[in-house]
């Protein structure tokens, strides 16, 4: 009985520590490199967005959406897996403005991550 109580107590203690001490960063696959680069200012509109992640990813639960200056979706076509850790999505012809790339992936070690990248297109000649 004493042994069972100890097991229960130690488990609840650890569960308490885990629940209360876990910081708000859980996931595992992050963009290592993106083209266009996060925060880049471009003079030419890219035809696609590519992201290389820190881990291999599962296509079934991965998504990349590019949002334009007027909150319209400017990505088009199917999300493509270039390599185990890289994704690409095609883009409509883009005008000057600020763009946001929203990404969500499931890594092969079961963790879900999401985030945003940004790039800006300036009118050519500037």
């Amino acid at each position, binding site marked *: 009985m004493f*042994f069972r109580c*100890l*097991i229960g107590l*130690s*488990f609840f203690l*650890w*569960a308490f520590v*885990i*629940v*209360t001490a*876990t*910081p*708000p*960063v*859980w*996931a*595992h*696959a*992050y*963009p*290592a*490199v993106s*083209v266009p*680069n*996060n*925060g880049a200012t471009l003079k030419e509109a890219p035809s*696609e967005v*590519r992201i*290389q992640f*820190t*881990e*291999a990813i*599962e296509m*079934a*639960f991965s998504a990349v959406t590019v949002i334009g200056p007027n909150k319209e979706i400017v990505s088009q076509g199917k999300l493509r897996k*270039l*390599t185990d*850790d*890289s994704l*690409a999505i095609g883009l409509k012809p883009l005008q000057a403005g600020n763009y946001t790339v929203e990404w969500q992936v*499931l*890594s*092969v*070690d*079961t*963790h*879900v991550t999401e*985030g945003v990248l*940004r790039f800006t297109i300036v009118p050519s000649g500037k």
Partner: protein
Amino acid sequence: MNNAMVGLEAAISAIGYIAQALVLGFFVTAGFLLPGSESESFRRTLAIRACRFLIVFLCASVGALVIQGAKLQHGELPSLEILWRYLTATQSGKVWLIRAGYAIALALLGFSITRGTARLHGIRWLALLSLPLIASRSLTSHAIAVKLHTSWVIAADAVHLIATALWAGGLVAVLTTVRAKRNQADLSLVWLAQFINRFSRLAFVSVALFFCAGLYLSWVHVGSLTTLVATDSGNVLIVKLGLFAAMLTLGAINFLSTRPAIRDMAHADVGNNSLVDKATTRIVVESMLGLAIFATTGYLTVLPPGVHALHAARQNFPPAQASALQPAQGAKVEIIAPVNNQAVTGDRVELRFNLTKGNRGHHAHAYIDGELIGMFEGNGGTLNGIKPGRHMLEVRVVADDHQTELDATDKVLFIAK
């Protein structure tokens, strides 16, 4: 995901680890550690207990699946469609299905073997057959996501898991056995000496394997002393190492002091209840530390490996402006493919290079016409989305902060057709 859900995921993960360790511990104890004179009925009792832990393992697996589905459905209770898609369309889902099917088969086999009289060789087979169940956890752990030397890392993770299960799971089984024998007033000193001696040898080998594999995995997942101190997963690892040190100390005391004392007592045929009490208490504490190690392991599974912490931290900040290259300090890189002026067809280029890391180098960045296009931790990879025309390819060695590029670069020109 909110804190409660992460805590729940870590707790369920820990229960899964503990249950699979107890499955192995009880099967091994019943099949290999009990002295040859032990009755079949007692072996059977332990084997049945192992089968029950298989059911606990299955329950934890179902819990982990529901949590996984909730992660994919933004924290809501997952639909059957999501779960089915996860199980059939992802690598980790397929591994889950295979492991669950294997555990069910093993439990059925176990209950079938332990019906009536349990033959020793049947229980030994069950112990051996439970090894793949434990090792296969590596196929959904951080090990599978490591890009470099993946098969080595998976193998080390599997060894780490099996060694931990043998040691910590075995300890609980030993404790249960000794307590059951004492309660039945059936504890002979010669029997106890033989039993403890067998477990000590197993524990000694397990700890050595656990330590070596753990050291290698820490190096892979944490990478540096700075990451160990500055990241959440590094800090949890420090706690785990502290628990391991405490458990090892107690194990060493048992190995070097308790075991010989019980052996001497058995030789002299002199009973000493206080020594047995002391040994039992030490094993209880050692078992608690083992469970705590599993809890930290469960926690580690939900934290990003330390080596990825910098990528995580960079998410909210655009990269800094490119700064001047820093001294190479022994790092260098040489592009092997493509060779200078090579023509390639299509929009992909296979990149190969020799990388010498020197004192500060960690990985390489590849640039096409001055634009960062890829990061490589090995000696190459594929560059995608190359437009037709003549391009300058440059590879630079980078420090482990992912920002500092070293004065160790190589360039080639190639033509994409």
